[in-house]
């Protein structure tokens, strides 16, 4: 198990050698992820671990993939999607053009869920879904739209619980244990690398979703990310956070109106 001092050394080295800044990450979670990798790859010596990260780009890539959390689901928290479907999308639908940003999109399950709802509301053709992540590997998966077939049962249940009325299986083709989504659904998706720690705003959006991403940040970095979203959100645009995330602790709080009881805020100022 690595200790606190070693974790700080690692954070410094990663920044110095690779330019990734994990300094604002929640230590409890980061330490656990690094420990997990350290044990998984059977290191017994911290200096060897450090040297490998420093000198082997492939291993550094593996580290980024392993320490970032990429657990996601289609229609995770169906009630949240229900509110999107019944309250938010109808408002967005009145616009000539809908721009959505999925910040920290991981393998894309949320992006495909959104595309399905937009399609069912007949507005997918005038929407653009920007999806970004820090991890290039998950973006490749997201672009392909290929997910384990065994997950589809759960996703189908989530979809129905979120108010979906169609036969969910029409959205994918099954092949050798894999479900391929895509076709029309992915036509309006743009995937790109983006680091919430160091990159800036790149467009103006009507809806930004960043769910269960900022839980890995400390409060200062959360505030930075929230300011970035604020800069990227059109007036009267919506910000969606994870079910246990909040704007309550942020300076920005007074400029947003929460759409209760769900984790959606409307920018009012």
């Amino acid at each position, binding site marked *: 198990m690595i200790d606190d001092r070693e974790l700080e050394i690692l954070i410094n080295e990663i920044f110095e050698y690779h330019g990734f800044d994990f300094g604002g990450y929640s*230590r*409890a979670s980061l330490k*656990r992820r690094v420990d997990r990798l350290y044990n998984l790859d059977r290191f017994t010596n911290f200096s060897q671990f450090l040297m490998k990260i420093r000198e082997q780009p492939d291993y550094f890539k593996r580290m980024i993939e392993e320490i970032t*959390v990429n657990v996601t689901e289609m229609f995770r928290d169906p009630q949240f999607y229900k509110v999107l479907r019944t309250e938010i999308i109808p408002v967005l639908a009145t616009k000539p053009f809908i721009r959505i940003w999925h910040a920290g999109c991981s393998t894309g399950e949320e992006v495909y869920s959104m595309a399905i709802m937009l399609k069912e509301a007949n507005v997918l053709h005038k929407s653009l879904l920007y999806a970004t992540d820090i991890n290039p590997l998950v973006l490749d998966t997201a672009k392909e739209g290929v997910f384990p077939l065994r997950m589809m049962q759960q996703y189908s249940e989530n979809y129905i619980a979120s108010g979906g009325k169609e036969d969910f299986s029409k959205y994918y083709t099954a092949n050798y244990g894999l479900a391929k989504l895509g076709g029309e659904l992915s036509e309006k998706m743009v995937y790109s690398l983006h680091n919430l720690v160091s990159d800036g705003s790149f467009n103006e959006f009507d809806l930004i979703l960043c769910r269960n991403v900022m839980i890995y940040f400390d409060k200062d970095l959360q505030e930075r990310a929230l300011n970035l979203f604020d800069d990227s959100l059109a007036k009267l645009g919506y910000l969606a956070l*994870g079910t246990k995330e909040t704007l309550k*602790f942020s300076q920005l709080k007074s400029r947003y109106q929460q759409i209760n009881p769900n984790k959606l805020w409307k920018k009012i100022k």
Partner: protein
Amino acid sequence: MEEDKVTNPVKLVIIGGSAGSLEVVLKVLALITDKPSFALVIVMHRKSGEDSLLEELLAIKTKIKVQAVEDKTEMKPATIYIAPSDYHLLFEKNSTLSLDTSEKVNYSRPSIDVSFESAADVYGSDLVGILLSGANSDGTEGLAAIKAAGGTTIVQDPETAETPYMPKYAIQHLQPDYILDAKGIAAFLNLIDKNSPDKAA
């Protein structure tokens, strides 16, 4: 009971439980002081989406303040925090709680091991870990981490557990400081409270 075991001021008591543990938690809470000198964190396996239900139930059954956990909630003494379903609960050095959606551990999220290990890392000997009834092996490694960090470990007496697998598994793999029933656990917690620097003398 060895009263001298708890020499450090206990800042955090963390309780882990699964099947059959809710009743024990309620029994313990009913028997302990209203304003304990420590914070109390409960990590309980359950179906997702039942957070407010459990919080409300506990709030009815105890006079201690029950606080819903959101990411980066700051912990205070004399307050009960319940790990939300479908997240792992972790402890930061600045007394805030972090949430984590990474892979299930022991088929569980929240996992008792994950929270116990994280608490042990931050609170060391200022921590008491209690493992209750359940049908899974979650919690044993976490208790071992608490013990190794100098904290106090308590396992519910399997004889009194509705589902004894979890406490039994723990006792088979490590020697907890105490094996107690609900009443004994409550008595122990009241004792720590009495011995806390704020209240003693």
